[in-house]
């Protein structure tokens, strides 16, 4: 499959996609990196300096980075855990499954901000969830679920909103698993669990990987959902970047945080890819 040698034709073919992106983003990334070192400053006073990078040493910046990482990792892993069984279930058609499939996909078409608002409505102090639990006698006092310190509110919203997103990708991947492969394995005596581990997961790994990467990026860099439903402290790294620039007027330090966001995301993506290769390699 992959033994064609690279030809200039191939580079020409990737030019539309990759070229388009670099054309527009190249200067923005370059400027952000420069500003983190004090050059091209938005305030007009530019000089090369490493002082801005000291801001990463502050506790607040680290807390925000770890918080956002946590949100990204837990959201992506959580969603895939929920989604995979559903994808397997929906793989076989029939019996009202199309309707179910459509229903499940609705949150995909609901914007992130709206999704946050809807869920926050439910889990507010005297919201419907608390009232129901109290009526059922399970609670004496309402639970404070909003803006919880750990960030569960955010994770729940991310899973609610993104489950269909991951589902679509995983199902597209599953569609590529041949029925006769599964049948062959079954005929050889493989049990359900073995079929899952040795066939479904490795063959859909590219889809799982892509969806987890995309979900991670969304959750890691999120601003609106975390502003509404996230803990009061720490704030997401995107918010911290925004506050550093506009509240404390430290534009260059904000650029540092920007570089950190980009670098961290790239690193985690690379880590996910290696993990996927490992899982695929191991199981095969």
């Amino acid at each position, binding site marked *: 499959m992959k033994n064609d040698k690279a030809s200039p034709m191939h580079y020409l073919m990737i030019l539309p996609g990759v070229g388009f992106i670099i054309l527009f983003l190249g200067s923005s990334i370059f400027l952000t990196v420069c500003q983190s070192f004090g050059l091209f400053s*938005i*305030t007009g006073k530019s000089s090369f300096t490493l002082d801005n990078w000291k801001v990463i040493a502050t*506790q*607040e910046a680290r*807390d925000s980075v770890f918080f956002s990482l946590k949100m990204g990792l837990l959201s992506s892993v959580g969603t895939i855990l929920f989604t995979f069984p559903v994808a397997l279930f929906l793989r076989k058609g029939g019996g009202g499954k199309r309707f179910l499939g459509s229903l499940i996909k609705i949150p995909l078409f609901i914007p992130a901000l709206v999704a946050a608002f809807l869920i926050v409505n439910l889990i*507010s*102090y*005297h*919201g419907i969830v608390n009232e129901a639990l109290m009526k059922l006698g399970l609670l004496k006092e*309402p639970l*404070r679920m909003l*803006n919880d310190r750990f960030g569960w509110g955010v994770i729940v919203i991310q899973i609610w909103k993104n489950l269909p997103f991951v589902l679509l990708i995983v199902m597209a991947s599953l569609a590529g698993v041949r029925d006769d492969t599964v049948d062959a394995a079954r005929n050889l005596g493989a049990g359900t669990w073995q079929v899952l581990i040795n066939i479904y997961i490795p063959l859909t790994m590219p889809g799982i990987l892509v969806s987890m990467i995309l979900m991670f990026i969304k959750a890691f860099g999120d601003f609106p959902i975390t*502003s*509404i439903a996230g803990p*009061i*402290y*720490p*704030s997401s790294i995107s918010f911290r970047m*925004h*506050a550093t620039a*506009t*509240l*404390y*007027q430290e534009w260059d330090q904000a650029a540092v945080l920007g570089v950190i966001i980009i670098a961290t995301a790239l690193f985690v993506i690379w880590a996910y890819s290696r993990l996927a290769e490992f899982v695929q390699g191991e199981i095969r």
Partner: protein
Amino acid sequence: MKKLLPFVLACLVASVFVFAEGAKETAAPQIDLKTATWDQIVQAAKAEGQVTFYAWYFPDYFKEASMDFEKQYGIKVNLVIGDQTANFNKAIAEKGNAVGTIDCMIVGGQWVKTTMDLDLFWGPVNKIMPDADKLAPTLWVVQEGVMTKGYLTPFHRNQTGILYDPDRVTNPPQTWEELTAWIDANPKKFGFNDPSKGGSGQSFVHTLIAYTTGGLKQYEGDSDLVQTKVANWDLAWKWVNDRKDNLTFTASNNDSITRLNDGELAMTVAWDDNVKDMMTKGNLFKRAKMYIPKMGLAGGGDTMGVLKNAPDKAAALLFINHITSKEQQVKKFQMLNAYPARVDIPIEGTLLTEEDRKTNAIPWFPAPYKSHMIAEFVKNVLMK
């Protein structure tokens, strides 16, 4: 799929014609706005023919005001109600352009410092505006603790106060000690927002500092932070940390009010205009009461500024004059019960009494202290 493609292509071609028009270019004014007479400015504004104005609240009032302006002067108003952050991001992003797309915009909150530091506005305009002397004098000079040097025209005043549910609070506290006692007696029923996310929380912490560190007079007039003066601020943070379990931190100005409405809080700090807006739109129960306690809470207002690279400066000035005219300020007050910036209008029926405003409202301390306060709160209270 096959049928979709030609359809899409047809739409593409069609829309290119429909949507191809870009922003209209306008000629730069021929006159020097700083020395022209007001009549000349009006003529120049009419020649420009349009004005683009950005705000982030009161869509109802601004839409009506825009229609009145168009009727009176025949100048088209491009009104954009956006989001506070987005509006300023746009203004900052366009800073380097010779000609921007925003003519004038509302300026408020933390953005006063940011935009003045970045020198975004054209002016000063206090000598150009015909009714300048009828607008809140203090707001011409200082806004949110920032010296605005006459660049920003006051159009709206607001004030923070204590908002409470009279069904649950029988004796609203007036002094700092009374408030402290109430908080300790009613755990989690008093809340305020993280200062980095809204001005009402900032106002509360501002008063907190007044009462725990020896008053606000010592900071008056400082243009930079004096480290020795903030050395004892740990006393303020201690007050908060000692009763952290009794306090509720909310996520924004509006979140505080929402939580009061939801019954989670019985008392909070809020902006009077926010409260009134939410009440009229059915987002807050009508029995809620508001007052400025004797211990004092800060207030301020919002202003309007003309962008340095505005394409229609004369029209912008005329529009600002329109919004700050007596008729429009009265209209704004009637529509929204929002406090006008003009001092020559009789006011009745506001949430906060005139008495309260005169005696208990306090000014902000200088902006460098405010930024420091916000950062320190995060570091010493929220992080722990």
